[in-house]
């Protein structure tokens, strides 16, 4: 008898369950559409972009953890680090470190050079333009990515904010000892999060990008350290081939 009651009760529950779901689902689906893009979060990006573009000379360092997805979906993490020295509008030097290689990029406003110190190979191309253009063109033409490329694009038309389909404030968090506002965005196939220092001079301190095109969702995490009073001189941006260095053609992507 008891069993029969229990069975009846369970049957009733299982019958009722779909009804409950059917009732709640439309309400749940409607909520995000109402205010998917939080205007204050977009404004925070704008403010940060404006501040970034106003910085004339700075040094920024980053440590990155990236992920590779293997054939069966298992993920491997890897580490890399980079130092970037910048003098706007058109000088940049980046040093990139990974287990595979150390590489350097020099840009003095006239020429861009990629240098591999271990083998003393270098490739130089003529280029004029600001740092946003440098970042975009190097990537487009040669597949060369400058670390923290977004730093040079936020606050410019190359970082259109209307492509963001979802924006939210995720509260506050400390990165190191810096109090930061934490925002989360959805932009095309990528979900990304940024931690921006609070106050009148907003700087990004952490960036997380989740690639949604693979269901394993490989993610990169970049921590960002700032030095707004760097000691470097403009001469560091000019590349002079060291003794015994070999020039190598930089092959463009479209030249197959």
């Amino acid at each position, binding site marked *: 008898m008891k069993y029969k009651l229990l069975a009846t009760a369970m049957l009733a529950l299982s019958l009722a369950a779909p009804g409950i779901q059917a009732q709640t689902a439309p309400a749940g689906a409607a909520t995000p559409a109402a205010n998917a893009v939080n205007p204050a979060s977009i404004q925070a990006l704008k403010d940060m972009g404006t501040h970034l573009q106003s910085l004339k000379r700075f040094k920024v360092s980053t440590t990155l953890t990236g992920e590779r997805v293997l054939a069966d979906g298992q993920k491997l993490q890897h580490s890399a680090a980079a130092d970037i020295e910048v003098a706007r509008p058109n000088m940049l030097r980046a040093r990139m470190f990974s287990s595979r290689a150390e590489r350097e990029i020099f840009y003095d406003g006239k020429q861009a050079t990629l240098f*591999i110190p271990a083998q003393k190979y270098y490739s130089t191309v003529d280029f004029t333009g600001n740092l946003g253009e440098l970042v975009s063109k190097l990537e487009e033409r040669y597949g060369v990515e400058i670390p923290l490329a977004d730093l040079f694009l936020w606050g410019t038309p190359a970082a259109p904010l209307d492509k963001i389909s979802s924006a939210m404030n995720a509260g506050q968090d400390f990165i190191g000892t810096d109090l930061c506002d934490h925002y989360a965005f959805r932009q095309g196939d990528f979900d990304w999060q940024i931690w921006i220092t609070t106050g009148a001079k907003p700087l990004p301190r952490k960036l997380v990008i989740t690639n949604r095109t693979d269901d394993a969702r490989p993610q990169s995490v970049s921590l960002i350290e700032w030095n707004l009073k760097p000691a470097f001189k403009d001469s560091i941006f000019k590349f002079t081939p060291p003794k015994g260095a070999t020039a190598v053609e930089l092959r463009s992507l479209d030249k197959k």
Partner: protein
Amino acid sequence: MKKSFTKLFLIPLAMIAVISFSMVPVADARPGGGGGGGGGGGARAHAGGAPKANNGNRDVRTNNVRSTSTNNVNANRNTNINANKNVNVNVNNNRGGCCGGGWDNDYHPVATAVAVTAAVGVTAAVVGSMVNTVPAGCVPVNYGGYIYQQCGGTWYQPQGGQYVIINPPY
């Protein structure tokens, strides 16, 4: 300021610790011999001073990468053709099968699992295998921001102090 110096000093140390822990045999060859690994701020893995990562013991499965993470949200991301460039490097050959394009990307898709198996038995140039030196007469080529050695039809990618044989990047 003091704080950030300490951090800058700690980060590379931590990285070196991670690298030496994960890449089991850290290369024996330590150019310059001795010298004590970087005292001050220059502890980052500078060519010449620091040990080089050795990937000789790496499992072949680690070569079969189907996709990678992405490092920036804006560069070319919103414009059509390159939108998937970092994705599915083996299938979606927007880069001619080359690198994912990330500045951190020290990985080259050497082959799919099938190709690796197929190539075993060809002793000359097994894609995915590691060598210490490249043959004479190779030509360096800078593609996608990395320099490869092209030796006839065989391509080598520098990997720490060694080379791995890869599929042609383009």
